[in-house]
């Protein structure tokens, strides 16, 4: 293309078109950045709100629990399974070689006090609540929990042993306030 005088006026005298191109690109980038930034409040508005984040902890007194008993408490809208394990259940959980596990994790890494196993009672497959909290419930071949939705089975440490679930039952964050009281969350 030959540089006519008109081109020089349109695109700048020294390097044809670069200054105008720069203006075009920088305005577009700024405009896009503005669009993206203004989209964020809309996207973030449907995330967990402050009142929901505030409901984050639950205190549970384990003092009244009997050996072998299981209770379910609600935390953040989810069931938390707490089971006072028998000596046999603890031994079963401890004796399994890690190589036999789908999601290998030692039992001692899953409990703070050996007798109490505290897990989020939601199957890690697609979020159903496994059976096994009531004495009459089926607990699967590994004596822990059995998910009726797609047949996942968990052991007495809440580790997945069979079925489509990819992970062990998740552990909620909790700490012992005294010997028999825990705060979840």
């Amino acid at each position, binding site marked *: 293309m030959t540089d006519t005088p008109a081109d020089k006026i349109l695109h700048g005298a020294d390097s044809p078109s670069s200054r105008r191109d720069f203006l075009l690109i920088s305005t577009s980038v700024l405009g896009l950045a503005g669009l993206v930034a203004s989209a964020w409040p809309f996207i973030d508005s449907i995330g*967990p*709100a402050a009142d*929901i984040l505030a409901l984050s902890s639950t205190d549970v007194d384990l003092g009244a629990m009997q050996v072998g008993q299981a209770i379910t408490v609600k935390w953040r809208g989810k*069931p938390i399974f707490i089971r006072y394990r028998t000596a046999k259940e603890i031994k079963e959980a401890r004796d399994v070689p890690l190589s036999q596990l789908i999601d290998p994790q030692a039992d001692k890494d899953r409990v703070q006090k050996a007798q109490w196993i505290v897990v989020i009672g939601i199957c890690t*497959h697609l979020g159903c609540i496994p059976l096994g909290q009531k004495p009459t419930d089926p607990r699967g071949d590994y004596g822990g929990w059995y998910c*009726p939705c*797609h047949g996942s089975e968990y052991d007495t440490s809440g580790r997945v042993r069979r079925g489509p679930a990819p992970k062990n039952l998740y552990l909620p964050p909790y700490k012992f306030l005294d010997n028999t009281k825990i705060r979840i969350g």
Partner: protein
Amino acid sequence: MQENQTKRNKLVEWIDYRLPIFSYTDHNVISYPTPKNLNWMWNFGSLAGIVLVIMIASGVFLAMNYQPNTAIAFQSVERIVRDVNYGWLLRYIHMNGASMFFVLVYIHMFRGLYYGSYKAPRELLWMIGVVIYVTMMATAFMGYVLPWGQMSFWGATVITNLFSAIPVIGTHIVNWIWGGFSVDLPTLNRFFVWHYLLPMILFMFVVVHLWALHVHKSNNPLGIDIKSKDDVMPFHPYYTIKDLVGLGVFMMVFLFFVFFYPNFFGEPDNYIPANPMVTPPHIVPEWYFLPFYAILRAVPDKLGGVIVMFSGVLILFVLPWLDTSKVRSATFRPIYKQLFWIFVLDCILLGIVGSKPPDYAFFGLIKGVLVGRAATIYYFFHFLVLMPLVGKLEKPKPLPNSINEEVIKACRAKED
């Protein structure tokens, strides 16, 4: 067209000069050229459109009495059924209308599959159709959550948890979708809003769908192009009347369910209020999701199952490029015709597998999950292997010269 214009009155002329709405209607509805050999399978598009209108109308009026709050959602639906004038009718129309919508759309889609309606130059028409289908599924899913029964709640939990399979950000996405740490009030609230909004978007997609259709006009059972004026008839009155007859028949079926078996398509567990602490023993989605649910369960891996299930829907987008045959209609494709019916049976089988519990055994012998796996593999085998191969290997029958010729031949055969 010429006749119509001479008949137009002054007011019509005045308006049409400024906003050509009358010319537009004439062009797209009245004198719109339609192949004259369309069979009854071409009724389902217009029927689906009518059901969409029925759904929007009944939905808007239901929303005037429904309350999207976890504490009262279930009761508000019961109040609609018991106390609101004709509330029971509106609810059952809306409930069964959703099922009917999917019945019609599935027939519509299989019609397209059989007669090659997705082939050039109708690829975009087909793809917009797939967008409509996906939007329908999202809308129906969110609508099913609203009554806040056990199936609503657990269906919502299971389906939204699909996104937790995404590596790294999965859990965050799920918490964002829920607006919290479980399916709860914020989830119900936003699903109500989306369920109200999506049908409007769906409606716009339908307009675009028709727009794309009207560029190259309808396909027809012979799958050959319109070549002359003799091949077509004006849409009105010939096909408006035919569509109305179809509507009459459809309404008899639809209202039969509404009045006599209103809960036929539903799950009784959804008449139990949602309980986040108890999962029903057997969670099943609505029937129209069952084939995809079976595909999800057929894969032993969580992320894998989700990917394969979504692929099952998304593969439809590339269908026009998977089918290598130049011949549109299966009428002239002896091998594809048989494969088509095997594919239909495969989809039905997937639906049956999806409706059974995971440990169900067919005839007490064959494990349901194995049947599901075989059917899933065949589903993809059909699209990815059979369709490209058959298009190349099959020798199609000779195509007729024109639509008109075939119609005249058929009339003569009838007279003789």
